[in-house]
């Protein structure tokens, strides 16, 4: 079977992606002990990475989206995840209707 160039690029991209998914474990599992500072850094990874997926979107998308993130941020201190999610959805629709 003849594979298209596109297919080869996809497979190469998939391989590169798989390397990023196992790479960190490959490196870290070689060490017997983890330095406390490295451990502190690793514990911060979820908040650090996920914040970068939110912050620019919150600031640069538009005023309605900025307002939505503020509402969701405050709500998250009081409500469970799923409620925040639904509230955020309602908020973005409402703010877009009100302030565009």
């Amino acid at each position, binding site marked *: 079977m003849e594979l298209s160039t596109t297919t080869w690029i*996809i497979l190469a*991209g998939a391989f590169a992606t798989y390397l990023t998914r196992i790479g960190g474990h490959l490196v870290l599992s070689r060490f017997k002990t983890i330095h406390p500072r490295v451990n502190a850094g690793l514990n911060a990874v979820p908040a650090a990475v*996920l914040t970068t997926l939110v912050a620019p979107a919150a600031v640069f998308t538009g005023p309605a989206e900025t307002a939505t993130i503020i509402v969701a941020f405050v709500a998250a201190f009081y409500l469970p995840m799923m409620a925040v999610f639904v509230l*955020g959805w309602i908020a973005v629709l409402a703010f877009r209707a009100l302030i565009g």
Partner: protein
Amino acid sequence: MNAKREIADGIRSAMPVIFAAAPFGLLFGALAIDNGFSVFEAVLMSATVYAGASQMVGINLFGDHIAPWLIVLSIFAVNFRHVLYSAVVGRHVGHWSKLQRYFGFFFLIDPQFAEAEKRAEDGKTVTFLWYMSTATAIYASWILEGWLGAVFGKLVANPADYGVDFLLPVYFLGLVMGFRKRPSWLPVVAVSAVASIGAYVLVGSPWHVSLGALAGVLAAAAIGGEPAEAAE
């Protein structure tokens, strides 16, 4: 804990993810066809690369007749943050076999990583069964959405009309907030937010993700490890 419970828990963790990612899975399929992909190629990319943002970047570059190696490099750059994920989750899955780890980490995307960390933080064991139940549910729906988008793309209306285009940032914010009991959470979030916004303006996307995350991780490392050794 019994197996049925693990599977049910895993699928429950996947639900909001499936919901939030659905518009992007559909959009990817539709855009892939617009950029000259066949339905097979669109589904293949969702099934093998399996990372929304990098798939979008990839198909945008395909449309511009850019050198193949540069497309692969761009996909690698967008996904580089994943390097951190298996390093972090790897600490909770020491009881998995080697094969389970190298198989399981294929599915270690942003929400899978966050759900696994949440489970570990709740004091529950991150079993292979729970992990793969979450992963299978997300993976299967992602592929299905890519296929639906590719086949019916022309029928998908503007996602912004329904507000679904902004669900993913809201979902990620919810995840960030879920980790707020962790040490140094506030400084980490503040540093990552400022650094990613700065990098977004100065360097551009997708580098703001890696640079912003790196700044937050370094901040946590600088603040230190155990509270006991905080006095220094």
